[in-house]
């Protein structure tokens, strides 16, 4: 499995089953025959990306998602809709570019 797919599986797991998990628990829940070191690598990559947090202190460390899938989706949406400054040009968002006023005017013209 590619690293990207693994990250996705791990995030799906942490999102769908809240509550911190140890790397061993993550490995046991994931399909396939993964080494714990692989799972730990993926978890630390996700931690660097700010998606996963590790509770400090005693070992074994436990990992959980920083915020929910819904929160991340809303975050993406805000970037796309330009609520985040300077992002609109960056994302080259396209189909939009029409405001609600104009949309309503066109709808009237269409006779809806």
């Amino acid at each position: 499995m590619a690293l990207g797919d693994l990250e996705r599986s791990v995030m799906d797991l942490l999102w769908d089953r809240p509550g911190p998990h140890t790397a061993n628990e993550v490995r046991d829940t994931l399909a396939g025959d993964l080494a714990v070191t692989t799972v730990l690598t993926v978890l630390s990559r996700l931690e660097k990306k700010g998606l996963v947090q590790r509770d400090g202190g005693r070992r074994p460390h436990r990992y959980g998602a920083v915020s929910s899938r819904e929160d991340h989706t809303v975050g993406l949406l805000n970037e796309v809709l330009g609520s985040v400054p300077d992002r609109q040009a960056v994302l080259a968002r396209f189909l939009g570019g029409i405001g609600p006023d104009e949309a309503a005017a066109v709808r009237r013209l269409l006779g809806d």
Partner: protein
Amino acid sequence: MSVLLLATLAVALAWPVPVLLDRARWVRRAPGTAMVLWQAVALAGGLSLIGTPLAWGLGPFGDHLGESLPAFVAALSDGTWVDRLEEDVWMPARIAAVTGAVLLAGHLVLTLAVTAWRTVTQRRRHRQMVELLATPPAERTVEQAHTRVLPHDVPLAYCLPGLNGSLTVLSQGLIDQLSEREVNAVVAHERAHLRQRHDLLRLAFESWHRAVAWLPTTATARRAVAQLTEMLADDAALKSHDRTDLVRAIVLTGEAEGVARGTAGTDAGRTVPNVQEDGSVPLTLRFYRLLDPVPPLSLTVRLGVIVTALGLMALPVVLLA
């Protein structure tokens, strides 16, 4: 004399020309041609903006940059440049002009580099999140490899250009609320943006605006170019899809966007004019041409505009060399 002509060109391209081009109605009949003209206006405008102070500042070393620049560099290296300039009453102003021109040129290049770098990194980060959150479409009718569906109710579609493969992102809300034909029209529209590399055009005009934000026409150019990319993508989608499907899809996403923002009509810097006093909304050219199709400009006229654009780009070079 050529410096005066160049200065006139710089002023014309900085203000009246972009304003007139922005008002021109013919662009809806030839968006691709208009796009070439906008690029020529920006490029020639930038060149003449840098070239005018540079050519004037180096005036004591020759009438043209081709002559004065090598003479100035030679004078710099043998230390005689101060002597040459001391004979000139305008010396402080000329030094300021040359310095300003060099700084402006550096500023433009640097802004382009910074904007491009930020764009690439933010897009990469956004894409990583999309790959984690979105799934390929379940429907077989939508091309699956380069499409992702975000689990959200707001109908929206956008494209994410990338170095290793671009993505079209749709929301589940779009798929649920639009008919299959409307969704396919949207996908065709987004694909056209990606295929025609509209992101690069937007990047260029975005950084041109960021670099010279004090020049209001750079915002005009940015908005006009954005609208032209929409027209071009509309045209590409209409080759294989129904006009009504495309218009309905655009209207639905536009309305939903207002709801999602919760700031309908109040957003500053919108591309769409606000409601007039009589309650009507002036439509952008993009919608005029979608609702009331007009035949494209004749090939002769379009060729004429292209030749004008090429001449415009060559003009500052001819005047400077």
